[in-house]
Every structure is written in C-alpha cells, then in structure tokens.
C-alpha cells in the first residue's frame, strides 16, 4: 500500500479522534462545574449523590462505562438503537467520565481560594454571583490549569478506547491497517500523530499559562 493511502486512512481516523476529543471537552467542562457545585452543595443528599457519581465514574474503567452505555439500552429496556448510537454512546460515556475528573479539579481549585477573598468581596457589596465570576473563578482557572492540562492530554490518548465500540477513530484505523499490511508502521505513525496533537495542546496550554503568569499568590 502506498504511504499516502495509509496516511489518508489514518487521517480519516484522526478526524474522528479529534471529534470525540472536542465533543468530550465541550460537554464535560461545563458539566464538571455542575457536578462540582452539586458536590459542594449544602443540601447533603445532592452532595452525596454527586460524590457517588464521581466515585463510580472514577472508580471503574472507562472502557466498561462505554460498553455499559452502548449496550445498556438494549439489555435493560430492549431498545434497539440506530446505527448512529455507537458514536453518541461513546460521546456520552466520555463526557460523563471526564466531567467526574474535572469536577474534582474544579472543587479543589474553588476550595483553595482563601476565605478572605470572599469576605473582602462581601464587605465591598459584591453579590454572590459577582464574587464567583469576578473574584473566585479567574483565580481558580489559574490554579487548576496544570491539573486540567494533564487531564486534557490524557483525553487525547483515551479517545483510542472508542475502538471497543467499533468506532473507526485513529487507533482502530491503525489496528486494521497493521493487520492488513502485517506491519507495525501504521501504529508508529498513529503514535506520532497522537504525540504531535499533544504537543499542539501543550503549546496552547503554555500560552494560556504564560498569559496568567502576570501575578502569583
């Protein structure tokens, strides 16, 4: 097989990989905020529920979660889902899983902001919402950026788990090519592409980190 053909197949896979990556972030970054706020809620049942959610999603393999969502509707309710379902099952699984990790990062960030910041804002008359949006959140973002970066880089590589659902993302594509060509080269190229993608993300994260470097606390 020509190299360019192989590259074409891998890049097609990469498009799906990137799609899973983006959809996961778009869904889980905000969902994580909701889970974190629930986890810190003064209403105990809600806090426990959020804690249980986090515990289960962090405590079981993502691969099993993906399979549970993929096959759950059929085994539990006898529903047969359309051919699109595997992609959405994958997206939902990733979003739910990453939201749990992000929630814990947000929570640690929010709880690391000293009480004095809230008190200073309160005395100045800021509302609760203003205090959170203007005073707390910008500081939280700076503090959690390294941890978030780790998680996001992990997500790049975790997208390969989508192969268990038969989604033709880059890892699946590489696997198929390797079998057909009896060669490790497709794997090596896929690895290189993952790495380059991560380098790009690291570059962006570094830029953001630099931009927030104008103060320290």
């Amino acid at each position, binding site marked *: 097989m020509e190299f360019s053909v192989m590259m074409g197949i891998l890049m097609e896979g990469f498009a799906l990989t990137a799609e899973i990556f983006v959809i996961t972030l778009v869904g889980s970054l905000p969902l994580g905020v909701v889970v974190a706020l629930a986890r810190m809620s003064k209403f105990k049942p809600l806090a426990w529920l959020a804690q249980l959610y986090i515990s289960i999603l962090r405590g079981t393999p993502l691969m099993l979660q993906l399979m549970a969502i993929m096959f759950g509707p059929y085994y539990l309710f006898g529903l047969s889902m359309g051919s699109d379902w595997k992609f959405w099952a994958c997206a939902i699984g990733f979003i739910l899983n990453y939201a749990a990790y992000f929630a814990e990062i947000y929570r640690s960030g929010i709880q690391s902001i000293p009480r004095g910041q809230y008190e200073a*804002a*309160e005395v100045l008359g800021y509302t609760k919402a203003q205090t959170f949006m203007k005073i707390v959140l910008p500081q939280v973002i700076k503090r959690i950026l390294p941890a978030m970066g780790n998680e996001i880089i992990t997500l790049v590589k975790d997208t390969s788990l989508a192969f268990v659902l038969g989604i033709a993302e880059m890892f699946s594509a590489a696997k198929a090519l390797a079998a057909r060509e009896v060669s490790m080269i497709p794997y090596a190229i896929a690895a290189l592409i993952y790495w380059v993608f991560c380098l790009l993300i690291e570059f962006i994260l570094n830029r953001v980190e630099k931009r927030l470097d*104008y103060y320290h606390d």
Partner: protein
Amino acid sequence: MESKAVVSLTNGKKAFGANEVLKDISLTVNAGDVLAIIGPSGGGKSTLLRCMALLETLDSGDLSYGDLVVCANNGEGRAVYGGKDVIAQAKTRFGLVFQNFNLFPHYTVLQNVTDALICVQKMPKDEALARGRELLARMGLADKESMVPCDLSGGQQQRVAIARAMAMNPDVLFFDEPTSALDPELTREVLKVIRDLAAEHMTMVIVTHEMGFARDVADHLIFMDGGVIVEQGSAHEVINNPQHDRTRAFLSNYDRD
C-alpha cells in the same frame, strides 16, 4: 454641634457553640471619632468588628448605621436582621481593612480600588478611575496603579486595601490589626496613612496592638477581655492611667510609645 452616631451597637452578644465570645457589648461611634479597641488575644476584638461588618451575625443585640437599623432584638431577645435591601444599604456605610489585606491578586492596584465602584455602586467608569487615582495618590501610590499586589510590599498592599475601602466612601472605616502582618518600618508607613485619615476626621474603629499609636490617634479607647468591655474612656486616660488590674496587667506587656 450635636455629634451624630455613625454606628451603634447595643447589648451585642455572640457565641460560637458554647463559647460565648461577645457578652453584652455596647458601643457608639460618632462622626469624626476614632475608636481604638485593644485587648489580649481571643478577647473577641475581631469577632466584634466582624459582627459590625456583617461577616458574622449577632445572636442578640441592636445594630444600626445612622438611622438604618440593621438588626434589632425581637421579644425573645434574639437579633433579627433586616432584609436584603437593608443589608446591601448597610454595606455602603462601612469599609473593612483586614490584617492580611485580602487584596484581589488577579487585579491591578487600580482595579482593586475601582472594581467595586464600577460593578457594585454602578459608578461610570471614568469617574471611578478618577476617584481611584486620587485615592492612590493620597496613599502615596500614584505610580503603582498598574502593578499587581504581589509586586508590592506589605505596607503598600495595606495602603491599597485602605484606598479600596475608602473608595466606597464609607461613613466609618474598620481596621482589624492593620499592621500585625508588617515589620516595624512598613508598620510606620501604614500608621501614617491612618493618622492622616484621622486628621481629616475620618470616622474609624481600629483594633490594634500599637499602644502609642492608639493613644495618639484615638479619641476613645476600649479594653476588651473575655468578651466584655473591661474598661473604656479617653485613649490617653486608659493607656496612661488604667483603672482596672486586668488593663494594667495587659498594658504592662507593652511600652507605651
């Protein structure tokens, strides 16, 4: 001229669980007065200030700012606070300066001073910036407006915090040990700013361990221990000539200049 009460607390009580921290405290601060509060650690000074600054709620007592009643006792002697509007209005009447500054680290010096003016008091931005710059100049920080707090000395940070509190144009300014986190040199520069404010007849309540400063700057002084006012009077009288043994014992730990 009849002097008018800017803030008054009557029979204030506050407990944390079984720990009665404020036991029946009453005080009045008139316009232009400087009140100093001294006393041993754990005596309830911060709690008193925090109750007045609405960071803690009183269990019992009446608290008013001018004619604005913030809380009053009900029939059972429990403090009942006014609604949201009352609380919001009360917060425009006082400012609080913390021991550890509590500046917003992600804001520049000027933003620290002006942000609440713009987003809480809804002052037009130009006006707020002008006011912020004027205050920073008064604090001797005119050239620091675009720096961030972490690049300033502690004394400079505390002066920014004072400017931030003053920006809101409060009727009274509360200070909780404003120099305790500072070394002697920086302490002097912050105390000078407070002395200047006193000379301009700013109404202030200052918790401090600087006895010489309290004696020189305060009109009135309260010595607090164990949640009660043990002794009070003119600052000069109490510091130079304390009447109670506990006050004497406390003051003997300090040289008074």
